């Protein structure tokens, strides 16, 4: 398991090829990032994405 902000760093850097986003009932967003050649899938639940109160509520780094 990598650090909790690993996925959000990848999002900000554009370091991915595939991004899926689902809005959850509490208004937070479930984001999945996948990159070619990277043997990990980054899943994170983010509140107020790109906003002033942005917060990574959960993050999971799955090995492929």
């Amino acid at each position, binding site marked *: 398991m990598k650090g909790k902000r690993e996925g959000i760093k990848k999002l900000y850097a554009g370091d991915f090829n595939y991004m*899926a*986003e689902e809005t959850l009932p509490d208004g937070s967003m479930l984001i999945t990032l996948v990159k070619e050649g990277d043997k990990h899938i980054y899943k994170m639940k983010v509140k107020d994405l790109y906003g002033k109160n942005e917060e990574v509520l959960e993050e999971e780094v799955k090995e492929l």
Partner: protein
Amino acid sequence: MPSGLEDYSYRGNVDITAQTVGNLAVDIAAQTLATLGINITAQSLAELIIKINAQAVGIYLQPEWAALQGIQKTFLCSTMGSYTSYTVPKGKTLYIGTLTCVGLATNSEYGTWETLVEAKVIDWTTTTVLGLIGGEGGGGISFPTPMKALAEHEVRLYLMNNSAHNGNVAGEALMTGYEI
């Protein structure tokens, strides 16, 4: 190859920065050439002649090339009435080439009704609509001229239900492109 050195391989860069370049001839004779990158940034270029004499030369359109380089981007929004958000990193530009959406009424009571869904791409920083697609059950389009989102601009991919009913319409919107 640096003068005076006998070497069977050479790897290096040639950078030319000049107000004017009268004539520049480059001859490469090699059994194999891994990568030849030529970047020209000029206010005007009178003539560019490239002669290639090879058994095989692969020429790709930019989207294909982007996929070969691993810089392609795909964005999926799977929440009806919501969006996927992405801010283009500093120094990069996002080019969006395709936009598709699908939708269906998950309530069987509305199964035969028209289910109109729409996908919309908005540059949220400038609040300009870059692309739209929709129709009964969805739709798809490939843009001859890619939609362009500049660095540090937030791009949102919206998925909306425009049906005259709300029979629990579910769907997905997808956009693809590349970032350089």
